[in-house]
Structures are given as structure tokens and as C-alpha cells.
């Protein structure tokens, strides 16, 4: 069996292809290198900063989606949750109900968490298929966002000091922009959560074998509930973030981006049937998508072709993964002596 052949026996290439993260990192590096050759201004500090800042929302939400997918679920309501919380905060600032940035974030997160909790209850207690439950809430939360907006936007002028947050780097010790800093923090927290805490492992356990998890005393319903709550919480945070980053709150914020988040996770090697996937994968997946989106205009591919390229890359990555796995299995079989 391949697993029993000692690691050192495997060539470097094998080890890279064996680990999804490693191969993705390779892809990312090659990608960046190619783009850099085409347009040298790509890998500048400011440019990378922009990439991270503009995609912070996707990157953070793919963390939540990672957890959801790990339990074998899915959540397509996240962007609606984002819009609802973001819009609410925007309006609160517009009508001078609140002034403090911190409070704004707290409210956004609270709203997001509430939305997530509701979904969590419906899914974990009500036994509704996640895709259906979240599809329903996708309509509901988006609708609520529109109602709250009541055909108003919160522009830069209305938001006032709240928009400065995305510009300053007070959290990043004056070096790293706040938004990027928050992203990094989220990733650190989730890395620890998933790898080194009981809760994290039970998420994997549920996705890997639900019945076993129940029998061995994992509180499946509770964990599932928490996972959707966390997802909502992150979506809420992202609501506030995208308001500060684009210094405008509009009810149709990031419409349809939930698919990008899911795509990021899947490219990152997260299995949609649950149990498999890692924070590193989510990071690389969302980074690859971000780089592509940023790079296409730079390398002179008409931005009209952007979606096509994105889609093809998604397909290519997942198919490639299957092919390599099959090849490895075959070579293992052939190595067996009969």
C-alpha cells in the first residue's frame, strides 16, 4: 500500500503532487511568475496590497465556507447576509445613529451571527437540506437588505469616519493595512481552531462519518449549528469590511459572489462531500482566483474573457486533481507484487 511506503522513498515531485496544498502553491507561484514576466508592475508591494484588500471579503468568507463544506453542508446565502449587515451599518451611520467604527463592526458581526444562527437552527434542528435552507435565506436576507436600504445608499460622505478604517493601518502596526490585518488574524484563528482544538476536529469528524460522530458522542447538531453561526458571523464581518473598503453601502453588494467563495474552497481542495480540506487550501484557492481576476487585464486578456478563464481554471483544477489521484492509484496497484 502506498501509505506504508516510507515518506523518504517518494520523490519530491511525488510529495508535491501528493499534497494538494503544495501543488496549489506551485500553481500560484508559476502563475505569478508568468504574469510578472508579462507586466513587471504586478508584484509591487502596493499592487499585492490591493489584491489582498479587494479580495479580503472573499478570502475571509471562504474560511467560513470551509467549515460548512467540511461538515458536508453548503451555504449560498452568505452574500445576502453580508449585504444585510453591511447595509444596516451603512444606514446607521447615514442617519448618525452611531459614529464609532468599533460599534459599527460589532453590530455588523452581531447581525451576521444572528442570520447564521437562524440558518443553523433550521438546518441542524429542522433537518432541512443546507442548499435549500440557504437558498431560501438567500432571497430573504437580500430582500431585507433592500427594505432596510429603502432605495438609499450610504456614500463616502454619509459614512464619514467609518471609511478611514480601510485606509489606516493602526491594527497592522502602521505597516499592514487594517483590512489585510483582519484577514490575517482570521486565518491564524481558524488555522488554530481547525487543527488544534476539539471543536475543529469534530467538524472534520462529522463530515467524515456522521453516524460514527454521533455514536462516539460528538454533539453533531450543536457543531453544525455553530458552523453556520460562524459562517454568518464572518459574513457579517465582511459586510462591515466591504462597506469600509468601497466606502459605500448598497443593497446589491457582492451579488452572486457566493459561488466565487465556494469555487475558491473547491480549488483549494475542499471536498464538497465533507471531511477533507484545510485552511491552507482555502487560502491558496481564494488567492489563485484573486490573482487571476487581477492579472487578466494586466496581461492584456480582454476583461470580457475573464469569466471564461475563471471557469475553465476551476474545471481544470478539479479534473486535474482527479486525474493525478487516479494515476497515483494505478501506479500503486502496479507496484503491488502478485
Amino acid at each position, binding site marked *: *500500500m502506498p501509505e506504508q511506503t516510507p515518506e523518504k522513498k517518494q520523490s519530491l515531485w511525488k510529495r508535491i503532487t501528493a499534497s494538494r496544498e503544495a501543488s496549489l502553491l506551485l500553481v500560484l507561484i508559476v502563475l505569478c511568475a508568468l504574469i510578472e514576466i508579462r507586466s513587471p508592475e504586478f508584484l509591487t508591494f502596493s499592487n499585492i496590497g490591493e489584491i489582498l484588500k479587494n479580495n479580503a471579503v472573499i478570502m475571509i468568507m471562504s474560511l467560513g465556507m470551509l467549515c460548512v463544506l467540511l461538515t458536508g453542508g453548503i451555504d449560498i446565502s452568505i452574500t445576502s447576509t453580508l449585504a444585510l449587515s453591511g447595509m444596516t451599518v451603512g444606514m446607521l451611520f447615514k442617519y448618525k445613529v452611531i459614529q464609532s467604527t468599533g460599534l459599527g463592526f460589532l453590530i455588523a458581526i452581531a447581525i451576521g451571527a444572528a442570520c447564521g444562527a437562524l440558518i443553523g437552527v433550521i438546518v441542524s434542528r429542522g433537518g432541512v437540506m443546507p442548499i435549500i435552507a440557504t437558498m431560501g435565506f438567500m432571497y430573504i436576507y437580500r430582500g431585507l437588505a433592500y427594505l432596510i436600504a429603502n432605495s438609499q445608499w450610504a456614500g463616502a460622505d454619509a459614512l464619514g469616519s467609518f471609511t478611514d478604517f480601510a485606509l489606516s493601518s493602526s491594527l497592522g502596526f502602521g505597516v499592514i493595512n487594517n483590512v489585510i490585518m483582519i484577514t490575517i488574524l482570521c486565518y491564524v484563528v481558524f488555522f488554530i481552531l481547525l487543527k488544534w482544538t476539539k471543536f475543529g476536529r469534530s467538524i472534520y469528524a462529522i463530515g467524515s462519518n456522521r453516524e460514527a460522530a454521533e455514536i*462516539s*458522542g460528538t454533539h453533531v447538531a450543536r457543531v453544525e449549528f455553530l458552523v453556520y453561526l460562524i459562517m454568518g458571523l464572518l459574513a457579517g464581518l465582511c459586510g462591515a469590511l466591504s462597506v469600509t473598503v468601497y466606502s459605500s453601502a448598497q443593497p446589491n453588494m457582492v451579488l452572486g459572489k457566493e459561488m466565487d467563495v465556494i469555487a475558491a474552497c473547491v480549488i483549494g481542495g475542499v471536498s464538497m462531500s465533507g*471531511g477533507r480540506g484545510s485552511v491552507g487550501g482555502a487560502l491558496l484557492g481564494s488567492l489563485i482566483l484573486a490573482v487571476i481576476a487581477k492579472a487578466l487585464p494586466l496581461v492584456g486578456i480582454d476583461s470580457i474573457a475573464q469569466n471564461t478563464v475563471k471557469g475553465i481554471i476551476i474545471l481544470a483544477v478539479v479534473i486535474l486533481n482527479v486525474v493525478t489521484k487516479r494515476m497515483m*492509484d494505478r501506479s500503486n496497484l502496479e507496484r503491488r507484487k502478485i
Partner: protein
Amino acid sequence: MDLWNVTIKTERKARGYIVADNVLELKGITKIFPGVKALDHVQFDLRRGEVHALMGENGAGKSTFIKVITGVYHAEEGEMYLYGKKASFRGPMDAQAAGIAAVYQHPTSYPDLTVTENIFMNHEIKKHGVIQWKAMNAEAQAYLDQLDADFKSTVEMGTLSVAQQQMVEIAKAISMRARIIILDEPTAALTANESERLYRIIEKLKKEGVSVIFISHRFEDMYRIADRVTVLRDSQYIGTYQVSEISSDEMIRKMVGREIKDLFPKPETKIGGEVLRVEHLSRTGYFKDVSFHVRAGEIVSFTGLVGAGRTEVMEAVCGVTRASSGKVFLEGREIHVGCPSDAMRDGIVLLPEDRQKDGLILSWGIGRNVTLPILRTLSRRGIVDVPGEERVSKKYLEEVGTKAVSIFEPASSLSGGNQQKVVVAKALAQDKMKVIIMDEPTKGVDVGAKSEIYHIMGELAGHGYAIVMVSSEMPEILAMSDRIYVMCGGCVTGELDHGSATQEKILALSMSKDGPGRENGKKEAVANA
């Protein structure tokens, strides 16, 4: 050598030494499911360091009883005493905390996670909330070494064979410092020598003063390992006996509630011409150069260790997987089978090993299950003739004597034996059938049903069907088969006929060399499905 000194290494508060003689005692346990009484005032007691067998037909309530002990189910009535103190478990966690560990029939493992994680799931080694991977891996490896396992603790569970997975489960039980270990049909999936290894482990545990509850359908298990035996029937408590003082016939009577005359009815059938011939069949990584033939009215069995490639050969013959080389002849004519439907068209029918997963659609009525393969023949102008369909299914289900309320009863509600009968009926319904391949036909089937299935096999042979049986159970192989092919490491290592076959010969042939695991094979079959 002492198993516990391994666990002492871990800083976890050692439980006080047990003095009570009765480690575990249950009185008047009653468990009720919607519409069904699964346990009716069952009693049970377990002494320190004893192996207590729990016997009974499928559906007698053994598994339910275990789940009550392990806190998965909560009994409506009855008390449980642990070390003399009254105990009631709110959930599995309580049972684990109380030192009760269960190893279930189908290992309840996490295929995507490593062996270490499987062993330490829900009792990870943590330092202020942070999981200590190094320590866990090391400790897990130590347990595996104690059980002289042949795999690493960092391996993914999904890649292990059933026997290996069971070993992990036992390691898990030890890691929890369990004083009471429950083994639910551990030997069902094991071959003779794998079982032997398990027995040794159990004896080791006994010496440590661990009490073991042992569920099995195999009498040889009970006689080999158990001190006392408790029998359940129809969710009722029948009695508890000293194993040394009870004969197998008595046991059968107590379990089945009636006399079973000759368990293996092997009718004398006249053997006709050759029906199926397989020549030099090979599949990379699974089996090589396998040749065999079956004649009409003949029962040919394939045996060998798990992983010898028996199932894989049959799957290749029936088109579940593709063979990489070799020829298959049916009545002298070469046939090319690409998928099961091709095989059925030609008259080769496979009764898969895992009838729950591959044999039946559990949520469907048994009638529909029977007619699924023959719907096209049952439909006029492309429309299924439902009354006709129901007639046919009823006919064949009765022919094999399925016990069910109606043909609309979901397959999931039937006992293992009856499910197997449905699968057989499904095969019989195919009038083209010439060869019937039964993969472990009596696996997880209780004694009563077993003999009935043997009867059916005999009748089929009588009707001139060519029968191939894949089995690991010595008694049935020796009793039922006209010829026996023994496989090992993907090759046929010998062919014995009814007269000359003995347990020793078979074991010798099946251990002539050690073969690869079979799990990947199963996986691929699923992938192709």
C-alpha cells in the same frame, strides 16, 4: 507484557482499582422504538475479567442492547449498575467516561482522518485546550505495536482493511483505558487466522482484568473465547449459561426457538455440462491469471483470506470492474462483459457481498427491489405493467420464503437473512440466469436463516444452475461445495473437491503467501458505479 504501562505514560487521572465482582449489571431493560418493542425486560451481568458472549438471531435485540449499555439509546425501563453503583448514561460520552468502549460490527471510523485521530477522537490529548499531535501519534503507535499491527498511526483510516480498522477500534478502546470492551460481531469480516489473532488480543485483555462482551454468530468464536453466554430471542431474555456446559445444538434451539435438523442440506444433484469458464483472468493489482470453471448443478466455492482477491475476481467476471486481461466463456462461447447489465443479459448474476450497500435499495419496497433488473421485460410499450410487476415479485419472494408483511415493506425493515432472500429472489426473477455468484451469502445472517439459504442453494443446484459461492466460513465451505478453489494474494493456489477438502488443507493453501489489502478494490467498484 502489560498493555497498561503504555497508557500510564499519558498524564490522565487513573481510575481507582475496581473491587466489585459484578462489573456491570442490567435489570429489566426495556427499549421501545416507534411501534416496536426492541428489548423486553432483558437482564445481563458481567464479571471482572470475563468474556461474556451475547448470542441471538438477527433482530433478537443484541445490537440495541449494546447501544443501551453504551448510552447511545436510553432505555424506557430498567436499571443499570456499574461496579455496584446505579448508573444512567445521558449519552455515549458518559459511557466512555465510565470506561465502557464498543467496537461495532461495521467499524465506526472516520475514513478521511488518520488512525491517530480515530483512536483519540473525543478524548484527544490536550494541553490547555491545544491538541498535542506529537504525543498522540507516539501513543497511538505504541498501542498499535502492542497489537502487533502492520501499519502506521499516521495512515489514513480509509486505506486500511476491515481487519486493520477493527484493530484500530480496539486500540481506541485501550486508549480510553476501558474496563469493559464490547465487540459486536468482530469476526464477521475476518478470516480464520485473523480471528485467531483477535482471540489472542482478547485473552491479553482478559489478563488485564478487562471484561469483554462478545457478540457473534459463530459458535467456534463462542467456544474458543467466551466464559459465559447470554441468549436473546425476539427481544426477550432467554438465559445465561456456562459455555463449557452447553452444546451447540442446545444453543441453536435456544436461539432459534425450534429444532434445526441438519444445518447443511447438501442434496445429491447430477452435475451437467460446463456453463462458465474463466481463463487467465487478471486485473492489475488485484488478481493474476485466475482460471476456473463451473458446471451446471454444481456448487463451487472460492475461499481464502480477506484480500486474497476472491470478490475482485467475481466483480470482474460480472463487469462491476474491468479485467485487464483474460477470457470468459459462457457455455463455450466467449462473452465480453462491460457492466453488470451485460453480465445479466448473458445470464451471470452476482449477489454482492455487502447487500445493504450494493444488493438492495433499502428505502424501497422489497417488491420493487426484486423487479428492478427486469423492468424492461415487465413493461409494455415502454410503460411498466405494475400489476404484473407485483405478481412477479410476490411469486419469487414467496418462492424463497421471505418473511415480510407485504411486497411494499421497505427492505430496510427486514432482518439480514430475509434481506439476503430478497437478493436471491431478485436473481431468480431473471429468467435468463444460468450462473449465480453468491459473495458471502450468509455473512451476518443468523443460524435459522442460514440453513434456509443453504436449502435454497441446494434447490438452485438441483434446478441445474451453476453456483459460485465466495465464503470465509469453513463449515459451510466444507459442507456445501462440490469443488473448492482456494485463493491467496490474488492467485488461485489450489483446487480441492468435496471429498478431499479439509480445514487444514484449505488453511495451508490460503496462507501460502500473503496478499494485498482489498479496500482499494471495493472503492474502485463504487467509483465506477
